[in-house]
């Protein structure tokens, strides 16, 4: 059974990728996730300066998924460059996630991380709940996406993954802008919403930031549709993220057109072992359904 895939010439032993913001705070955790079977891992997003993020509660769950407003807490690029050194120890490709409030920030962070052995740079232009970043800074428009991606393109030779929001009706236009600016892959999608959950006894929103991005099962059909549309709209590969926690989900995402699948909330649903389990379930399904190579199911849901 062949599970290995190539995304922008990065070889992944299997198509599962740890999504950014889940467990990617330290090299030790990346290594643990790699040992738990992930084909690649993404670090938690890094900005120029250290950020404390929002107050707690920052992550809660509900019957249909998860709601988070972590607020991009991170130690800043200088500390991150120290933490994420000698990345070959991790054992699988490591993707850097880089954020900024303006395009110069992205460039500075990319430069600051250039000494590390990252395999690709992901730029999420799509966070729905952190003032100054992503959607709240207007980074999700085709023009802003083009500008930021172009700037990052000049700053690095590494493959660039542009991570998009499912909230944007014109997601394909944004993806094309990224492609035109030299992006090598699209990561689809970031969390949706934002949403809000109110504790009715407290009579207050639970998240300290009041609203947060929705992920997990609730997001899956939306993510599948985005990937399905993007697969037709752009030529560069699409990494499908959103609600994947089983082998069946991963296969559905790949049939929609994904070259690899990101897993975030799935770590909550099924533990860190989710990567290994998803791969086992994919293998079993493919065996039972007469496939010998995961690359052969990519995009088959299209006419």
């Amino acid at each position: 059974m062949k599970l290995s895939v190539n995304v922008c010439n990065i070889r992944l032993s299997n198509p599962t990728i740890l999504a950014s913001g889940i467990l990617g705070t330290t090299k030790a955790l990346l290594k643990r996730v790699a040992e738990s079977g992930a084909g690649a891992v993404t670090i938690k997003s890094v900005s120029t300066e250290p950020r404390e993020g929002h107050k707690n509660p920052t992550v809660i769950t509900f019957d249909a998924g998860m709601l988070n407003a972590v607020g991009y807490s991170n130690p800043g690029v200088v500390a991150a460059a120290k933490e994420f050194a000698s990345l070959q120890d991790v054992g699988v490709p490591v993707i850097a996630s880089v954020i900024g409030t303006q395009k110069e920030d992205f460039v500075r962070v990319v430069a600051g991380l250039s000494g590390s052995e990252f395999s690709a740079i992901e730029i999420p232009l799509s966070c729905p709940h952190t003032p100054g970043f992503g959607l709240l800074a207007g980074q999700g428009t085709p023009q802003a996406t083009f500008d930021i991606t172009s700037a990052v393109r000049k700053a690095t030779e590494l493959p660039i993954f542009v991570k998009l929001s499912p909230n944007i009706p014109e997601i394909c236009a944004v993806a094309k802008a990224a492609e035109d600016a030299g992006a090598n892959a699209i990561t689809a999608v970031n969390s949706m919403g934002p949403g809000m959950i109110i504790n009715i006894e407290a009579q207050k929103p639970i998240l300290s930031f009041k609203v947060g991005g929705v992920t997990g099962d609730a997001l899956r059909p939306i993510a599948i549709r985005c990937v399905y549309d993007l697969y037709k709209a752009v030529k560069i590969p699409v990494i499908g993220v959103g609600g994947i926690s089983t082998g069946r989900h991963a296969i559905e995402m790949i049939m929609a057109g994904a070259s690899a699948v990101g897993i975030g909330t799935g770590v909550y649903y099924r533990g860190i072992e989710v990567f290994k389990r998803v791969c086992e379930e994919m293998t079993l399904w493919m065996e039972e359904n007469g496939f010998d190579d995961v690359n052969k199911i990519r995009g088959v849901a299209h006419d």
Partner: protein
Amino acid sequence: MIEQPRMVKICDIWDESPSVKTFFFKFDLHFDPGQFVMVWIPLLDEKPFTISYIRNDLMGVSVLKRGMFTNALHNKKIGDMIGIRGPYGKGFGLQTNPDFCVVGGGIGMASLATVVDRLNDATIIQGARTASEILYQKRFKDMNLCTDDGTTGFKGTTVDLFRKLLTRRRFQKVYACGPEKMLYKVVELCRNHGIECEVSLDRYIKCGFGVCGQCDCSGQRVCVDGPVFNIKELSKMKDFGKVTILKTGARVVY
């Protein structure tokens, strides 16, 4: 399970020391000694606290007044509501037979209190800054006390006292909670004496259920893989006793 705070009424408040109060509330879930809850004050913040009393469906958390959140908690009155989610984490591995010792430093004693409740004939070492800060004086008899200023018990640290005790007797198992420097030394002593040991670690907690990565200690998530770790696990955790991680994710050396 859904990870959301449930509002509960504070039904009793005990003064344990000038700086520690215990807040009691009803919460009908099963807790193991060493597990913790997230306590939410709406619009303010949410922080981790070990369950220090388990009496059927009555739970207590003993809270050291320390900063913004714990101050706000200390201002709560009986009848006020707080949010609770949990139980979280892996508690202490309790065995019934062995001759065991708990070593608690400061508010760390709160984690060990339910261990003492469960096991009979515990040897208890408790250390505090000064006599008035000793916790659970009425709850537990015959504690081996020590204080930094010698106002009660042995003058010196819990580590010194533990080392002293070890010269005249042996334990099969030690449970410890307190400042990590202390824990590090307790673990060292236990290793040298061939004593089993479990310690409860403290890292900055956000989600509490293993997804955000905030509470990392060398690849172990304190919130779900811990907070209790045994010697074998700790021996692989390089950060133990040396490095902790701030809210930003920055590493700081102790």
